[in-house]
Structures are given as C-alpha cells and as structure tokens.
C-alpha cells in the first residue's frame, strides 16, 4: 500500500473524525440531560385522567430508569431515527415536524450571512478610501449595529407591520435576515475583523513581494484571505444560529426557534432533543465544511505532519 496515499487519506479523515466525535458528545449531553429529567410532558395536562397518563408514560418508555431511556434514545439516534413527538396530535415524527422549520431557519441564516458579509466587505472597501470615510463608517456602524437583535426585531417588525401580511412570506424572511445581519454588533464586529484580516493579508511577505515586482497580487491575496475568512464564516454562522431563535418569533416565522419554544413549554422532551440535535449538527457541520475547504485550498495543510487545524 502506498504510504503517501495513506497519509493523505488520514489528513482528510481527521476533520471527519473530529466532527463525529463532537456531534456524538453533543447528542450524549442532550440525551442524558433529558433522560434524567424528573416528570413528563403529561404531568401538566389537567384534563387527562391519571390512568391514561400512566399508560402514555409507559407506552413512551418514560417510566424506565434514566440509563435505559438514554441508551434506547442514543441507539435510535445512532440509526438516525428520531422519536415521536409527545405533544403533536397523531404522533408526528419529530424529523418530519422539524424538517420545514429547519429549512426556514437555514434560509434565514444563510441570507443573513450573505448579507452581512456583502455589507461588511463593502464597508471595508469604502473605509479604505481615506481616514474620514473610515471614521464615518466606524461611527455609523457603531450607532446602527449596537442595537440588540431581539430589540431590533421587535422594532423593525412594528415599523413594517402595516406593510406585512399576517401570514409570513418572503418579505418577513428578508426583514429578519437584515436584522440578523446588522444587529447585535454583528456587522460592526465583522467590519473590524474583515478589515484586520485584509490588512494582514496585504502585508504578508509574498503579497508584498508580488506587488513590489509589479505583479497583480489578487490571486495571492485571495488565497491568503481564504483561511481566516472561512473561520469567520463559521463563527458568524454559529452566532447567527443562536440569534435567529429570538428573531424569528417577532416576525412570525415558523423556524427552529418557534418549534423549540413550543416544545419546551409543553415539556415535549422528544421534540427538544430533535431540535438540539439538528442545531448542533449544523454547528459541527459548519466546522467540518470549513476544515475541508481549508484543506482543499491550502496544500501546506495536506502535507503529512502538518499541525492540527485550530
């Protein structure tokens, strides 16, 4: 067997193993927390007779010891099988319930991510044209971007309420994405970080040398910028995924946030597990994509004995 090929394979395998290990850890934390929880979703239902409650508890296996419950759930999740929701009628499968919400949330977050990077890159380009413009951008962004996301969501929704229908449509999604892209200091942070990465990439030796020799250094610059920007995208994606949970609801969007709140208020532990597994799979998945992209772009990282990706 070719040793070099094996080493290359190992380099690509490492991020995948890291992804699986982190996700497995996250799922275990969720399942153990939920399985040790006292009481069930049926305790809070006043109109249901006691005998029926006990029957339901037994049917869903909620009366077993916590480690039995946890083991059963982990085994099912390892086979990508989610439980049945405890609070939706006709026993909706958790995965089927979550799928539309998941798509909607992912759409909002991706739109917000695209918007924020476009706006921040534009601001960096504008600010480079002189100290006065840089000052203008900095002050403007500090004023606009300082508003907390959920406060901004409430205000923007109220301002637009006369123009928005009760049933959410694409305008609600765009408004929510815009709030996410700007508020919570998001755009200001991104502007600063992108500006710093840009300045650092421009002052690396090979870019300076290429420019000094009169070569267009755009390709070098973009390749140098790739790793830090990939890291920024992942970090920002994770932050937006948290912020979207409080922004969706004021805009009336049916997303993971809505499902998670409903599930938590009905103590529907099966649905909560589903939401958390979906969310942490997204966060870990973003890290995996980042690692693969960096390996694909930077040949130094593919060499055997390369330092672990930080």
């Amino acid at each position: 067997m070719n040793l070099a090929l094996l080493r290359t394979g190992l380099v690509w395998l490492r991020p995948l193993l890291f992804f699986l290990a982190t996700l497995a850890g996250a799922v275990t934390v969720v399942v153990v927390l939920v399985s040790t929880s006292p009481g069930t979703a049926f305790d809070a239902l006043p109109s249901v007779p006691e005998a029926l409650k006990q029957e339901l508890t037994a049917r869903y296996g909620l009366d077993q010891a916590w480690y039995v419950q946890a083991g059963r759930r982990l085994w099912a999740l390892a086979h990508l099988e989610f439980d049945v929701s405890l609070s939706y009628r006709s026993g909706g499968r958790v995965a089927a319930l979550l799928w539309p919400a998941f798509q909607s949330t992912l759409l909002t977050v991706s739109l917000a991510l695209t918007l924020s990077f476009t706006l921040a890159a534009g601001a960096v380009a504008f600010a480079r044209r002189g100290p006065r413009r840089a000052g203008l951008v900095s002050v403007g962004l500090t004023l606009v971007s300082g508003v907390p996301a959920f406060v901004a969501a409430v205000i923007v929704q109220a301002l637009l309420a006369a123009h928005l229908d009760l049933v959410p449509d694409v305008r609600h999604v765009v408004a929510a994405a815009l709030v996410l892209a700007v508020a919570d200091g998001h755009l200001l942070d991104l502007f600063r970080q992108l500006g710093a990465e840009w300045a650092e990439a421009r002052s690396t030796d090979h870019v300076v040398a290429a420019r000094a020799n009169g070569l267009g250094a755009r390709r070098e610059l973009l390749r140098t910028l790739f790793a830090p920007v990939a890291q920024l995208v992942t970090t920002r994606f994770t932050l937006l995924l948290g912020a979207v949970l409080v922004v969706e609801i004021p805009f009336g969007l049916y997303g993971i946030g809505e499902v998670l709140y409903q599930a938590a208020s009905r103590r529907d532990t099966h649905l909560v597990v589903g939401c958390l597994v979906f969310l942490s799979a997204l966060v870990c998945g973003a890290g995996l994509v980042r690692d693969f992209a960096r390996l694909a772009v930077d040949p130094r990282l593919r060499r055997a004995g390369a330092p672990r990706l930080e």
Partner: protein
Amino acid sequence: MRRARPLDPWYAYGWLVLGTIVALAVAEVFVLPAKTPAGPDTLALPSAAHLLGTDADGRDLLTLIAHGQPQYLALGATAALLAVGLGTALGLLAGLTRPAVDAAIRYGCDVLASFPRIAFLLLVATAVDTSLRTATLALAVSFVPAVTGEVRQQLVALRQAEFLAAARAHGIDWFRLVTYQILWVHLRPRLIRQAAFVFAYVVLIDAALSYIGSLTGYVRIGEPPPGGHHTLGQVMATARDVVDTSLEDLHTWWPLTVLAGYMTLLVTGLLAFGESLVRRAES
C-alpha cells in the same frame, strides 16, 4: 510616576452605564415605591414629574426600568462570576497541565460550544426546571467555553514570554507566578471583558425570553413570582402592544423607544467597558 492617559470616551461611557445600572438598583431597593402606580398621564413625553415619560397605563417608565434592576444585577453578576470562575479554572488546567487534560477540556468545550446558547437554556429548562437559579447556572455554563478558550490561548502565548522565564530563574514561587503574574497582571482585563460580555448577554437573553413568553404564552423562564415586578421583556411586550403601526400617532411609540434605547445603552456600554479595559492594558 504614572503618565496621565488621554481619556478614552468608550471607557467613560462604560463607567457611566455601569454607574447607571447600580444607581437604579440602589434606588429601587431604597427609594422607589413597591409598586409602579398607574397614573392619568398616559404615553407622556419626558417631564419634571416623569423623567423618561410614561407608558400606556400612565406608569412612570424610569420606575418600571428600575424595578427590573436588582434581579438583572443579581442574575448578570452571578452568571458572569460563575462563567469566568469556572472558565478560568478550566483554562488554567488546560494550559498548565498535561496535554491529555488539555485535549479533554478542549473536547468538552467544543461539545458545549456546539449548542446555541438559547437552545441550551431551553434544553435545561425542559429537562430540569424553569427557575431563575437553574437558568442562571445554564447560561453561565454556556459561556464557559469562550472564557476557557481565551485563558488557554493567552497561556499558550505566554509560554515563550521572557518575563516568566526570568521569574522562574529568580526562584519565584510557582503559585505566586500563576496567581499574580498570569492571572492578576496579564489576564485581569481580559477576564473583566469576558465578565462584562456575559453580564450584557445574560440580561439580554432574559429580556428576550420574557418578551417572547409574554407575547406567545410559551415557557417562561426565571420570571418573578406572581405579584412581583415586571421584567424588562414584559414591559416591552406591553409597549409593543400599544404602538400605532400606521405611524400616524407617533406618541404611541415613545415607551417602546425608551425601552429599546435603554437595552441598547446597557449592552453597548458593558461591551465598550470591557473592550476599553483591554485596550488600556495593551497600550
């Protein structure tokens, strides 16, 4: 002798906001009446009688905001202390002991960091209970990976530092080196920045959750018992109810504007305070 530094406006702003929070909390405990009385002046703009104006029920907005302060101060400070304490301890363990311990702690932090904070809070609220104490603990835990990561990173950067080698060569006690040189001199501004960050976001998350709770009737986490004071989120929900969305009667927007402005000041002030502390230490 210490050279006088030029005043950093963000630093002053941070102190101003911190002072306001504490002053409001003190006023709430010692000066203000136990209940915010409704008055005849509804949706009034600021005047001598009502410094920040009134809401739709004629309640004084400044008093309403002040009533939330002691709970926020307790919640934010507890979460900040817990998160920074736990995070620092874990970060020191990771940075100063064996690589295996380091790897284990980093793995644990990666796992915790893979949950969005609010999702983690809702998970704990479902699995344990919806009390304020549990919510504080859950929020503190959700901020631990960030603190641990920063402490660990600083320790790695310090490994090559000459002043540490010099201190060791002079035979300075290891414990003193860690507690004084590393923790107090080097990490203090960064830890305060983290604490300010945790404080701001915990208060914000609490307000957001109680707003959503009042808006939708969903789970209410860490709310005061019935008959207690309104939280900032609940006051915001009532303020949101009365706004005239056609923008014809702009008076109706006043309470919501005041509350939004206050929350923005609170968060930006705390974050600016932390940032300016680190800037001062580095300059």
